[in-house]
């Protein structure tokens, strides 16, 4: 199947303006601005079944339709903060096929009546940000961005904004706070960004990969997109595969592809031909899935992965083999969340801190009762944190202890 998102793998130099334009580039945007009404664009995206690709999987067209049309101006923000461990798909999109991403962002802006859009990039994507600035300038020079586009009344400018190293800024309201020049700490929700977003105005925020689907959906139609993937999850997903596989990397595949195909057919199987012990499908925020044939043969889409007691999330598939002790693994994930906790809400700020003491202790024997205490602390955090960071910081801990209890009973002194 031809690439829909990572089209630079089919078409060399697609990151160059002329090549992108020659390969159908910007036609969907020009066509929509000159011939469609904004809500017609939203309807196409709604009917396509496209769901957010940042991790939550919220129906994209539906999100766009929630924008408050009684409050102006509107903004669109692209979440390019890609910081979930095991995720590196947005980076490849922006490096290899930047104009398709920008065109998708432009289409979304037109659909919701925004004249200004921001790309919030994690600070470490420094050079990528500079490259995007050059691409935006090229689009302006060619009349695809700026004032009164294609002779219509519609104007659009896109700006990049760099973060400065904070995973929490991938959470949409923390991103908005950071973009507004404050510490990146989540807001109380409701209200949600489509009613109260950037500078208090109605804002649509979507992930880079989500936007990158949009020009192809407009060009080929909603039915075309829906015909790919599964009934629960339409279209293709870029799976970032990492961990103990022979060929880590990004793999763009239709939803419904099995874990087995991803890991063995595409990923070259496990290093040293070892067995898969566990799969973390959503990066560090994952529940740990103990691997067996049934799991490996499970088709990957949002609904089906849930039946395995986990969430597909951003589809950042980390493969764990049988040489990895779960005590070591959860110590890693907990330290990540402790470092990245924004500090605003007590259960996460205190909980990640105390969990990290316990997971560190469990690395070196631990005290009697540590495992049960750790489980206790994690469970007390669940359902109480201001945002998903705190919630997800407990997933590997709880599922690690509950599903791999053997790993935890061994190191503790009796």
């Amino acid at each position: 199947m031809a690439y829909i998102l990572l089209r630079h793998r089919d078409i060399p130099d697609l990151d160059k303006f002329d090549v992108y334009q020659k390969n159908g580039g910007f036609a969907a945007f020009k066509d929509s601005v000159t011939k469609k009404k904004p809500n017609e664009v939203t309807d196409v995206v709604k009917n396509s079944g496209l769901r957010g690709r940042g991790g939550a999987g919220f129906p994209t067209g539906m999100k766009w339709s929630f924008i408050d049309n009684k409050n102006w101006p509107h903004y669109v923000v692209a979440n390019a903060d890609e910081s979930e461990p095991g995720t590196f798909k947005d980076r490849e999109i922006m490096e290899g096929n930047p104009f398709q991403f920008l065109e998708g962002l432009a289409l979304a802006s037109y659909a919701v009546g925004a004249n200004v859009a921001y790309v919030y990039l994690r600070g470490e994507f420094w050079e990528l940000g500079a490259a995007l600035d050059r691409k935006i300038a090229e689009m302006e020079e060619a009349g695809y961005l700026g004032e009164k586009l294609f002779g219509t009344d519609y104007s659009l400018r896109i700006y990049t904004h760099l973060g400065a190293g904070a995973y929490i800024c991938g959470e949409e309201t923390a991103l908005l706070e950071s973009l507004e020049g404050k510490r990146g700490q989540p807001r109380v929700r409701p209200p949600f960004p489509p009613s109260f977003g950037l500078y208090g105005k109605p804002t649509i925020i979507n992930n880079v990969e989500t936007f990158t689907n949009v020009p192809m959906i407009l060009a080929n139609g909603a039915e075309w997109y829906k015909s790919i993937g599964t009934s629960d999850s339409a279209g293709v997903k870029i799976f970032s595969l990492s961990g103990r596989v022979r060929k880590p990397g990004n793999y763009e595949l239709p939803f419904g592809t099995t874990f087995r195909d991803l890991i063995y057919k595409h990923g070259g199987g496990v290093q040293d031909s070892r067995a898969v012990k566990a799969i973390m499908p959503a990066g560090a925020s994952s529940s740990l899935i103990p691997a067996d044939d049934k799991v490996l043969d499970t088709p990957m889409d949002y609904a089906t992965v849930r039946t395995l007691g986990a969430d597909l999330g951003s589809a950042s598939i980390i493969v764990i083999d049988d040489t990895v002790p779960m005590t070591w693994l959860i110590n890693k994930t907990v330290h990540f969340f402790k470092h990245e906790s924004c500090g605003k809400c007590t259960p996460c700020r205190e909980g990640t801190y105390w969990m990290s003491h316990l997971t560190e202790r469990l690395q070196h024997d631990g005290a009697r009762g540590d495992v049960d205490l750790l489980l206790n602390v994690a469970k007390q955090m669940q359902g109480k944190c201001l945002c998903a960071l705190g919630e997800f910081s407990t997933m590997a801990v709880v599922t690690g202890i509950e599903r791999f209890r053997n790993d935890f009973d061994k190191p503790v002194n009796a």
Partner: protein
Amino acid sequence: MSLAAKYPNEVEQILSKYPPEGRRSAVMPLLFLAQREEGYINKAAMQDIAKILEITETDVASIVRFYTLYHDKKEGRYRMQVCTDLPCALRGAEEFMEAVCDRLGLNVGETTADGFLTLEAVTCLAACDKAPMFQIQGPDGLKYHENMNVDKTVDVISTLKRKS
């Protein structure tokens, strides 16, 4: 010297990206600008930025301390930030870090005697398929170095020294 005097064009360009009611948004790019010379943001720079944006110095300081890429004390001219997070660690990042510490004669968090390089451990840099890897943060930007080993690392550092 204030940022607006030293880099007038850049300050103006930064401020123009945000609407008047969103002027405060400029704090992040202005902090990167202030960090350009010395690799850290001193008190005078924080006061300067606070004045440009009409916010308090405490506001600015709280932003500096919140984010990993802003620094408020002078350390090495360059920071070598090695990812030792879970996916990289599954592909040898911890062993790589130990070997680097050995070769450079540094512990994590320390700076070389000549003040050139500070060695740090950081969380995921979105390069999990190219481990072991690190980024070098210098006064004027950030660069990735992927699929690394200790010898290649030493080459990177020597090249950086020659260019400085």
